[in-house]
């Protein structure tokens, strides 16, 4: 049965909410915008003429913007036909370290999402995290770490942090194995040369960040060393299991080591 002409036209237009992850210049005046959307998951779409000063899109399709969008489905790429701002996370873009942490969130969503697979939880969590990051003064890094752990859980990449990955023991957990993807007890760690030591506080922090909602983060107590160990393990775990380098996290590490060497001088 063939569809009536009016219905066919409707199928080519679709509306959803989305957050801009990255942009890429295309030709003379266009850009390809990659977004995480509520209804359609990750989408890369063309914004025509956006680089012209008088473009009707203006600053709407910059990273860290949450929008109501209308797309026109093309044969290869969709085209953005309308974009209205829901929220601009300008608290994130107004400060150097917040921008870096914000970009780290956008990059992880981009790397972990596959075009055509929708999961509204990812869009909603990114919106919540960026909102919190733009308002938080203390514990900005903690917001990013919480985001990482929750996103890994949504995407099925969360390491096993409940029990020993080797023997299911609940006690004596001392190591983390990247190859086995989780924590190990002392006995199992001895037979896994790739495992690294992990502090009990770090395991507890991982469990607590997974279960604590964003609004309860202010009550989470931790110290720099524990958070540093958690970030180090999570970054390596992501690199190992996704076989990718997270450029923003490398950038943050490079900047941090530059700052600390400056302070030493």
């Amino acid at each position, binding site marked *: 049965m063939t569809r009536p002409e009016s219905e066919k036209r409707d199928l080519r237009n679709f509306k959803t909410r989305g957050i801009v992850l*990255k942009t890429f210049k295309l*030709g*003379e005046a266009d850009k390809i915008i990659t977004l995480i959307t509520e209804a359609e998951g990750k989408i890369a779409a063309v914004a025509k003429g956006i680089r012209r*000063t*008088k473009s*009707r*899109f*203006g*600053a*709407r399709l*910059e*990273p*860290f*913007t949450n929008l109501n969008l209308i797309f026109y489905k093309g044969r290869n790429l969709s085209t953005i036909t309308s974009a209205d*701002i829901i929220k*601009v996370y*300008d608290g994130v*873009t107004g*400060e*150097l370290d917040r*921008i*870096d942490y914000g*970009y*780290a969130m*956008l*990059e992880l969503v981009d790397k972990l999402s596959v075009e055509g697979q929708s999961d509204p939880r990812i869009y909603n969590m990114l919106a919540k995290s960026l909102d919190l990051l733009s308002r938080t003064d203390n514990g900005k890094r903690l917001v990013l770490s919480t985001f990482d752990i929750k996103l890994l859980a949504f995407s099925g990449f969360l390491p096993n942090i409940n029990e020993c990955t080797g023997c299911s023991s609940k006690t004596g957990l001392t190591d983390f194995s990247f190859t086995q993807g989780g924590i190990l007890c002392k006995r199992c760690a001895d037979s896994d040369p790739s495992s690294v030591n992990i502090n009990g506080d770090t395991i507890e922090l991982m469990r607590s960040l997974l279960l604590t909602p964003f609004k309860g983060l202010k009550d989470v107590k931790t110290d720099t060393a524990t958070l540093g160990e958690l970030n180090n393990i999570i970054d390596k775990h992501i690199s190992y299991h996704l076989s990718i380098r997270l*450029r*923003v996290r*490398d*950038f*943050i590490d*490079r*900047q941090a080591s530059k700052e600390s060497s400056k302070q030493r001088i």
Partner: protein
Amino acid sequence: MSYYSEPLSNLIKELQRLPGIGPKTAQRLAFFIIEGPAANGEKLARAISLAKTEIRFCKQCFNFASDDLCPICLNSKRDGSFICVVEDAKDIFAIEKTHHFNGLYHVLHGTISPIDGIGPEHLKITELIERVKGSPVKEVVIATNPNVEGEQTAMYISKLLKECKVKVSRIASGLPVGGDIEYADEVTLSRALDGRHEI
């Protein structure tokens, strides 16, 4: 199977590598070159080869130059106490066309972009700081693009320049002349309101 003889298909292939040139335009340009007088083709080839061998970066501002310094840095009528920082050499030509700036320039050759792995060390930022230190520069105008990466780069540079005790300013952003407030986005419009001035 190629319909053209090898030299012609090579020419089309090379032209197609230029930005904004598709197969059809490349074919049209190639036919224009081979159908025109031989001297024109040679002139074009010579101009390309000369530009590639002669053009280098200006030692002071990193604009394109055929000598150690570019024509703007060599011009004694330019005001050396103002430096305008731009992302790309193309931006210099856009600003020069306004006839509103008589200072010197500094080309960064990009912007900080964590997502692409581009950090300050990949840009001409250290060179800018060295240039400003101990020089008669009074003001540095940062004219990077008004997008997230441009703003991030501007913030980073201004943080470094604070130690040099020099005035750092950012070009204004707001509504384009001839534009319509009705269609302006919230970010641009709020910037225009923040940057309002008394008349």
